[in-house]
C-alpha cells in the first residue's frame, strides 16, 4: 500500500548553498545531549542571551570547517513542534522564519523510538535535516543497538552516529552538513504520513486555507497543525481567514477534535517502519544501569534517604569550602575599604566614602558570595548532567504537590539556598505560568547564604551557646512560612489548575566536565553582570541616603530620618531605630545589616545585648530572615515575570509577613 505523503508542497531547500557562511539550527528533545554537542562544536566561542522578547535562553556560536564558517543556533529542547510551550513556538518559529541552511536533529540512541518523534515533525518543515544518533555509548550500556547506515537508507537523509562526550562523530557531522548544503548528498527524505481516514480532511483544509496562509508558513503544514489542534495556528487562521471560510474550517476541526492522537500515532507508526531493521532492542536481558540505579534512587524510602544524602553533601561542601573562601574574600574587601580610606589623600571625603562604603561595601560584598555560588552551580550541574536531578524532582513531588507545585519547582528552590537570584532565573524550567509565578513568589522565603551569614554573626551575639539551635529554628520558620504561603496561594488566591507533572527520567550517564564547566561559567557571568549593574546602582543609592545631607554623619542622614519615622513600628517589635535602619539597608544586600550595625553602634556585639530583650532579639532575627528580598532578587523577579504587579505583590507579602512575625514574637515573648 502506498502511503500518501502529507507535506509535498514544501520541498526541502536543496539548491546548493555557495555562501561561505552556513547557518545551522540544533534541534532535539530534552536530555539528548544537545548542549554537549553545541559546546564541543563552539567551545567558548558562543553567545548566551535571550530569544527576542522571551525569557528563554538563546545560545549561538560558530566554528570553521572546510573553509566554511558554520553558525550554530541551539534551539530549546522540545518533545514536539506543537505550540504547547514557549520553547516549542520558539523552535519552530526559528526554522520557519529565519530559514537556516540546515537543521541538525539530535536523538538519544538509547531511546531511538521516542526521540525520533521530533524528527518526524522536523521533516515536515522546509529545511534539510541531518540526523545525529548521539549517546551511542549510553545505548550500548542499556543494550540497545542502532545501525546508522540502515537508518540512513530507510530515512533518505544523512545519519551520523555520535558520542559527543568523547568527541566522536563531530567531524563526520560537519562533513555531512556541508555535503548536504552543497547538494552532494542524495537528499530524499521519507516523510511521515497521515492515516488514510484523515487524508481527505487534511486536503479539504488545505484547499480552504491555501490562498490565505500568510508567509512564511507552508499551507499544508498549517493545515496539519490545525488538525492537531495547535492553539497558535488556530488563532492565526481565525484572525486571517474570511469569516465564512473560518466557519467551515472550524466545523471540520470540531468534528475531528481527537485527530492529534491519530496523527501522533501515525508518526510513531512511521518511526516503527523506519527503525524496524535499524534498531535491535533486547526483549529480555541483563538489566540496564538505569534500572539498577533506580531500584534505589526512586524507591519510596531509599530514594528519600538518597535525596537527603545528596542535599547534605551539597550543604556540607558549601560550608566546608565555600564559606571559608567567602570569609577570605570578605576580609579582602574589608582590607580594600581600609586601603581606600587610608590611601586616598587630597580626594573629596564623599568620594572616598562612596568608593569604600558604597561600591566596595555594597556591590563588592555581594561578589564575595561567588565561591558559594560556584559550588552550588557545580553540584547542580553535576546532578543535572548525570540524570539524577529528574529523580530528585520525582522524589520531591509529593511534598511540592501540597503547595500547588510539582517536582520541577524543587531544583530552583534548592538553588535559593545559595542565592535567591539564580533560584528565580531557574524557574524557567517550569512550563506553566501559574506554577512558575508561585515558585517565584516562594523562592525569597528560602534562606540564602547571605541571610545565614547575618544569622551566623548575630545569633551568637544574642544567644551565645544556643546560637546553632536558634539558627536551625529560624530556617525551620522560613520553610514553615513557605509551606503556608504556598498552600494559601494555591488554594485561595491563584485560580486555575495546578501544573501538570509530566517529566521524562533520562537514562543515567557519566557527567561531562566541559558541560558542567560551561554551565557554571555562564551562571557566574550572569551573576557578575547583575552585581555590576543593578546591585551596584542600588548600593550607591542607599549610600547616598546614608551619607547626605549631613556629610557622612549617618545618625543625621536621610536613612536615619526614615529609621526614626519608623520608631512606632520599631516599638511594637521592641527595636530601637538603628535596627530598623539596619533592616532597611539589608534591602541592598542582606549582609548590610551587619555593616550598618557596625556604623551605627561601633562594637555592636557588646552593645546590642544590653539594648534588646531576648524576645526583641529573636523577633529581629525572624524579621531579618523574612524581610523583603534584596534588590537583586527584586530585579530578577521583575525581569522574569515581566510584571510590576507580581513584583509588588512579592515585596508586599514579604514585608507584611516579616513585620507581623516580628511583632508577634516580641509581644508573645513579652507575655511569657
Amino acid at each position, binding site marked *: 500500500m502506498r502511503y500518501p505523503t502529507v507535506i509535498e508542497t514544501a520541498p526541502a531547500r536543496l539548491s546548493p548553498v555557495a555562501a561561505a557562511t552556513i547557518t545551522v539550527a540544533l534541534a532535539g528533545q530534552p536530555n539528548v545531549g544537545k548542549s554537549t554537542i553545541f559546546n564541543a562544536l563552539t567551545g567558548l566561542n558562543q553567545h548566551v542571551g535571550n530569544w527576542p522578547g522571551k525569557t528563554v535562553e538563546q545560545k549561538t556560536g560558530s566554528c570553521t570547517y572546510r573553509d566554511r564558517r558554520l553558525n550554530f543556533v541551539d534551539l530549546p529542547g522540545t*518533545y*514536539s513542534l*506543537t505550540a*504547547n510551550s514557549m520553547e516549542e513556538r520558539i523552535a519552530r518559529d526559528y526554522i520557519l522564519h529565519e530559514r537556516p541552511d540546515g537543521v541538525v536533529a539530535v536523538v538519544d540512541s*538509547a*531511546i*531511538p*523510538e*521516542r526521540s525520533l*518523534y521530533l524528527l518526524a515533525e522536523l521533516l515536515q518543515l522546509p529545511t534539510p535535516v541531518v540526523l545525529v544518533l548521539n549517546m551511542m555509548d549510553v545505548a550500548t550500556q542499556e543494550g*540497545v543497538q542502532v545501525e546508522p547506515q540502515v537508518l540512513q537508507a530507510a530515512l533518505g537523509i544523512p545519519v551520523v552516529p555520535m558520542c559527543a562526550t568523547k568527541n566522536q562523530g563531530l567531524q563526520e557531522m560537519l562533513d555531512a552538513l556541508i555535503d548536504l548544503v552543497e547538494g552532494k548528498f542524495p537528499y530524499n527524505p521519507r516523510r511521515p504520513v497521515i492515516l488514510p481516514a484523515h487524508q481527505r480532511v487534511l486536503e479539504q483544509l488545505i484547499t480552504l486555507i491555501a490562498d490565505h496562509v500568510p508567509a512564511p508558513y507552508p499551507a499544508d503544514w498549517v493545515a496539519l497543525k490545525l488538525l*492537531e*489542534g495547535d*492553539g497558535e495556528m488556530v488563532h492565526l487562521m481565525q484572525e486571517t481567514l474570511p469569516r465564512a471560510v473560518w466557519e467551515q474550517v472550524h466545523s471540520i476541526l470540531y468534528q475531528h477534535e*481527537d485527530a*492529534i*492522537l491519530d*496523527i*501522533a*500515532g501515525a508518526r*510513531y507508526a512511521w518511526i516503527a517502519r523506519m527503525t524496524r531493521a535499524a534498531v535491535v*532492542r533486547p526483549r529480555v536481558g541483563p*538489566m540496564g544501569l*538505569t*534500572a539498577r540505579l*533506580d*531500584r534505589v534512587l*526512586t*524507591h*519510596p524510602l531509599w530514594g528519600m534517604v538518597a535525596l537527603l544524602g545528596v542535599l547534605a553533601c551539597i550543604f556540607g561542601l558549601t560550608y566546608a569550602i565555600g564559606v571559608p573562601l567567602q570569609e577570605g574574600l570578605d576580609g579582602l574587601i574589608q582590607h580594600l575599604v581600609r586601603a581606600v580610606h587610608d590611601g586616598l589623600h587630597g580626594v573629596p571625603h564623599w568620594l572616598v566614602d562612596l568608593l569604600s562604603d558604597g561600591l566596595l561595601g555594597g556591590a563588592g560584598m555581594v561578589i564575595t558570595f561567588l565561591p558559594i555560588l560556584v559550588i552550588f552551580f557545580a553540584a547542580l550541574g553535576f546532578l543535572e548532567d548525570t540524570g539524577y536531578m*529528574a529523580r530528585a*524532582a*520525582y522524589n520531591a*513531588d*509529593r511534598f511540592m*504537590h501540597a503547595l500547588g507545585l*510539582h*517536582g520541577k519547582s524543587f531544583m530552583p528552590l534548592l538553588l535559593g539556598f545559595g542565592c535567591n537570584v539564580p533560584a528565580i532565573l531557574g524557574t524557567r524550567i517550569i512550563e506553566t505560568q501559574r506554577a512558575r509565578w508561585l515558585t517565584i513568589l516562594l523562592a525569597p522565603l528560602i534562606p540564602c547564604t547571605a541571610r545565614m551569614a547575618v544569622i551566623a554573626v548575630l545569633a551568637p551575639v544574642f544567644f551565645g551557646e544556643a546560637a546553632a539551635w536558634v539558627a536551625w529554628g529560624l530556617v525551620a520558620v522560613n520553610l514553615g512560612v513557605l509551606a503556608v504561603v504556598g498552600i494559601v496561594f494555591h488554594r485561595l488566591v491563584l485560580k486555575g489548575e*495546578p501544573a*501538570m*507533572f*509530566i*517529566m*521524562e*527520567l533520562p*537514562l543515567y550517564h557519566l557527567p561531562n566536565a566541559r558541560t558542567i564547566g560551561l554551565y557554571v561559567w555562564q551562571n557566574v557571568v550572569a551573576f557578575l553582570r547583575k552585581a555590576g549593574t543593578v546591585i551596584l546602582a542600588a548600593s550607591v543609592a542607599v549610600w547616598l541616603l546614608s551619607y547626605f545631607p549631613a556629610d557622612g554623619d549617618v545618625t543625621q542622614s536621610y536613612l536615619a530620618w526614615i529609621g526614626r519615622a519608623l520608631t512606632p513600628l520599631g516599638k511594637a517589635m521592641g527595636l530601637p531605630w538603628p535596627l530598623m535602619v539596619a533592616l532597611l539597608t539589608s534591602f541592598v544586600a542582606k549582609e548590610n545589616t551587619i555593616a550598618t550595625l557596625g556604623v551605627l553602634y561601633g562594637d555592636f556585639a557588646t552593645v546590642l545585648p544590653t539594648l534588646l530583650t531576648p524576645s526583641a532579639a529573636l523577633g529581629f532575627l525572624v524579621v531579618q530572615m523574612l524581610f523583603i528580598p534584596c534588590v537583586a532578587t527584586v530585579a530578577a523577579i521583575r525581569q522574569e515575570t515581566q510584571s510590576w504587579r507580581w513584583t509588588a505583590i512579592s515585596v508586599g507579602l514579604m514585608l507584611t509577613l516579616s513585620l507581623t512575625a516580628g511583632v508577634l514574637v516580641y509581644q508573645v515573648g513579652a507575655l511569657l
Partner: protein
Amino acid sequence: MVPLTALNPGQVGLIHQLRGGHEFVSRLAALGFTPGTPVVVTRNHGFGPLIVSVRGAQVALGRGEASRVLVYVEEAVDALSNSH
C-alpha cells in the same frame, strides 16, 4: 478499562483513552502515549507520582495525570521494580 493509577508495578496497560484538555492530550501524545501503546508501570507507591515506561523511555506522571490515562490491563510481567 482502568486508570493507570490502578496498576501495580510490573503490570502492563494498553492505552485506551486520554481524558483531559487539549494540552494534556497533545503533550502525552508527543511522548508516545497513543492508543494501543503498551505502558509498563515501574513505580506506583499508592501515593505520589508514578513512573511508567513507554516506548523505551521512563516518564514520571503526577497521580492526577496518571488517573486520566485509561488503559486495558494486559498481563502481569516480572518487571524491574522491587517496591513493596
